[in-house]
């Protein structure tokens, strides 16, 4: 091989770098904290940011349900039971024969069929129900404090029917109920999720980290708890909780108690991973650095489980929202008059609805699915952002 020397490189004092965009000045490279880095990476994840926005929107809705909903959740109109959804039109025919801009929905022509025991609805093109934004409608108390009657959207004449998503068996506006349901569904179950998560992570960590008798004890507890079917527990609790509590309080307490029983799965998974990780060199290194056990567990080992925990979390949230419906099946979930997505779904759990009023099933289910997906993609984005291997 011939000898070659590249003397033009003699003076180089550091590795070659160049700015990200050609032409941009290469400033002194800023040092950022880990959190800022993670945030920076998260921001670049378009789907995740979108999901985050969706969730924010849902919480926004939950905050202003009274204003956003066109009607009141309890307001029922007998003649409109099982009314199908209306569609919005933008232009109406003028007297002069032309068209003019007027957002509206069409009213219904209703017939009662006493043999089949139902009302049949036909869209009546002649009944124009003009609608608008910031209209006056039924009075409500925002956050139970401020009496107001402005609604984001609604019929100009509050007595006209506007049922964009249809009505339920008692002639109540599904859209209103769906919006009201957001508040409960997006809040209550989450407390339980948070508690289970903490318990699962902490106890699983301790069990896997220490092994020995700690592990022995925690495992026995887990065995007892997880072999205990929840159904009898529900039934027992339902009977034990004082009746003077409102259904919402009862449900809240029940989710709390159940979360005390729901951590075992995560705990065992965490334990399994801890078992594998606790002997790693980097853990030993951290121990030699003087980290106490708490720091070892939470600062050094647990981050390795970020992905798993985020996945479990994003799975637990929909499970909690949906679980409410199953609990109702057993008679311990949320019940009317509380409005939640679970309650709406529970109302839809019969052939009658599936066959003749599918909108009662589709919209609440869609709401759950959207939130669930949004939480999941958000979790995904966070995972990716926290992943050291992602740039």
């Amino acid at each position: 091989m011939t000898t070659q020397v590249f003397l033009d490189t003699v003076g180089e004092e550091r590795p070659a770098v160049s700015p990200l965009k050609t032409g941009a000045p290469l400033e002194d490279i800023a040092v950022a904290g880990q959190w800022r880095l993670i945030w920076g990476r998260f921001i670049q994840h378009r789907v995740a940011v979108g999901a985050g926005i969706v969730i924010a929107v849902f919480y926004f809705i939950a905050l202003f349900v009274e204003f956003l909903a066109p009607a009141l959740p309890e307001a029922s109109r007998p003649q409109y039971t099982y009314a199908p959804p209306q569609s919005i039109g933008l232009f109406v025919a003028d007297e002069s024969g032309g068209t003019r801009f007027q957002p509206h929905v069409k009213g219904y022509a209703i017939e009662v069929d006493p043999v089949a025991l139902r009302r049949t609805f036909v869209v009546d093109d002649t009944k124009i129900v003009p609608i608008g934004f910031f209209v006056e409608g039924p009075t409500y108390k925002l956050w139970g404090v401020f009496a107001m009657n402005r609604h984001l959207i609604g019929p100009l004449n509050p007595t006209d029917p506007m049922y964009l998503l249809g009505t339920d068996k008692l002639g109540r506006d599904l859209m209103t109920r769906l919006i009201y349901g957001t508040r409960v569904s997006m809040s209550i179950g989450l407390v339980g999720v948070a508690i289970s998560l903490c318990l699962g992570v902490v106890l699983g960590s301790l069990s896997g980290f220490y092994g020995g008798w700690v592990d022995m004890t925690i495992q026995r507890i887990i065995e007892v708890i997880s072999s205990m079917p929840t159904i009898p527990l529900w039934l027992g609790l339902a009977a034990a909780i004082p009746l003077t509590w409102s259904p919402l309080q009862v449900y809240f307490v029940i989710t709390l108690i159940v979360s005390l029983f729901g951590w075992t799965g995560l705990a065992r998974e965490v334990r399994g991973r801890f078992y594998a990780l606790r002997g790693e060199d980097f853990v030993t290194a951290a121990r030699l650095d003087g980290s106490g056990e708490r720091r070892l567990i939470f600062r050094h080992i647990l981050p390795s489980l970020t992905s798993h925990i985020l996945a479990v979390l994003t799975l637990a949230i929909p499970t909690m929202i949906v679980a409410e419906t199953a609990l109702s099946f057993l008679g311990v979930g949320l019940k009317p008059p509380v409005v939640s997505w679970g309650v709406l779904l529970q109302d839809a759990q019969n052939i009658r609805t599936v066959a003749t009023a599918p909108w009662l099933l589709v919209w609440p289910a869609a709401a759950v699915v959207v939130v669930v997906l949004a939480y999941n993609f958000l979790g995904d984005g966070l995972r990716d952002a926290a992943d050291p291997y992602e740039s």
Partner: protein
Amino acid sequence: MGIGGMVAKLKADVADTGEPLLEVKDLSIDFHLRTHILHAVRNVSFALERGRTLCLVGESGSGKSVTARALLGIVDRQGRIAGGRILLHGDEGEVDIAQMTERSSELLRIRGGRIGLVFQEPMSSLSPVHTIGSQIIEALRLHRRLDARAARAETVELLRQVEIRDPETMVDRYTFEFSGGMRQRAMIAMALACDPDILIADEPTTALDVTTQAEILDLIKRLQVSRGMAMLLITHDMGVVAEVADDVAVMRYGRIVETGSVDDVFHAAQHPYTSSLLSSTVRLEQPRADIRDRAEALGEPVLSVRSLTKVYGAVSGWFGKSGPALTAVDDASFDLHAGENLGIVGESGSGKTTLGRLILRTVEPTSGSITYRRKDGTSDDVLALSKAGLKDYHRQVRLVFQDPFASLNPRMTVKQIVGDPLVVAGTLRGAALEHRVGELLDLVGIDPRSMERYPHAFSGGQRQRIGIARALALDPSVLIADEATAALDVSIRAQILDLLLDIQKRLGLSFIFISHDISVVRYFCDHVAVMHRGRIVEMGTAEEIVNNPREPYTQSLISAVPNPDPRNKRMLHRTRFKS
């Protein structure tokens, strides 16, 4: 390939020595980082020829590993090949590996089949949950289409060739039951398993004692001669370069600054970096830089180790059939005095790492005693320490891990890793902490601006220095450095060693310096203990051990130290130790 074919190929190969098998042309690799683009490799060109060895040397972090991995189409996610070609010559003409997609079947055939790769960090590069054997067998079955039994037999044979003792049982052991050097050899066996045309070995002998290293290099040489295998050897050990290289390329800051035959480079270096590299090479003959009067320098013993023993039971038996117990450390006793540097050398797998860990009690000793004497004169029985006491002890006696990658938490940035002991000690926080971390990184020659990167985005040598920085963070009184400089190029190593000596002078700390590089041990240490199969077979001053070894094992060890001079290859005249 049938036997006939092999013979034919063998003949052809020998005839064809010198014909280029792989040509790298103008290869550039960029890493897209958050704030900037790092040009880790720039316009690198070289060729690998049949039967010849190209040694790639250069500064730590100069892009050697990145280049080597790129030859197999392995590039980290943030990185991309920005230009250049990697032409592989074969029966069907030449193909450009740089153009191949990750999933192309052609690339799969080349990987492991035509090009074998020994990763720089064998310790982390093996699966933790599979036996060593199964990982090698898999490669054999894939490329050589052997049946399970033949593959196993071949694996045992390969392990034997790479000097693993008792290969029949060791095939069924798990990675974590192997010592660092054993893993490295297993990795080499894996790369050699399928008779590759080209072997890329990224610092394959960093964890090997010199005798084993010599055997391995011999093995490779034999294969090269018989099969015409081309080799790209990346190493920091100029001795090894001198011993095995045909050609040498010197890399710095992503560029090849000089190439040439080994003789030219060693004896007529053109580029100033090459010259400085050679001049900082530590020779065996070179005595300790800072000669002081030992008798006066040595104070009280800080650590007294007596009859320390560790017996491992095997883990591989699934239904209770535990294999024979293995005595990893056997009755080890020594004293470490304040301000003393104790070198530990010895065969790979002889229990050096284990000894270090026993002293820190990260592995519980089977028997023996350890006494630690503090500066204020109080002393502790380390084996009886309480949790809090142990924590304090760990603050004073620090460890640099042999496997830097595994010892760095992959989910923490370098800043957090190095800062962690400081945070725990509660001495610093906020900007002060950041400043101190920057200082420490600067001390070990790492750009502080990269401190927000995660460990995987560093080169092997850089990671090792991060480990050192972490160990130094707390001003310890004893530092156990397990192969702490193995992955460093000579100039940086010299710099680090001087740094350590400097600190020692200031703080009066003592070192237990586990190393395979006897030249470095001699340069750095006052006393040397030689380990063999778990026992300390000889102890003495560094000078005595190097110049006047008494035990036959020590003699063979010294004789195998490579000489960084291609005109005077000492390895060839080594004596082999037969136990």
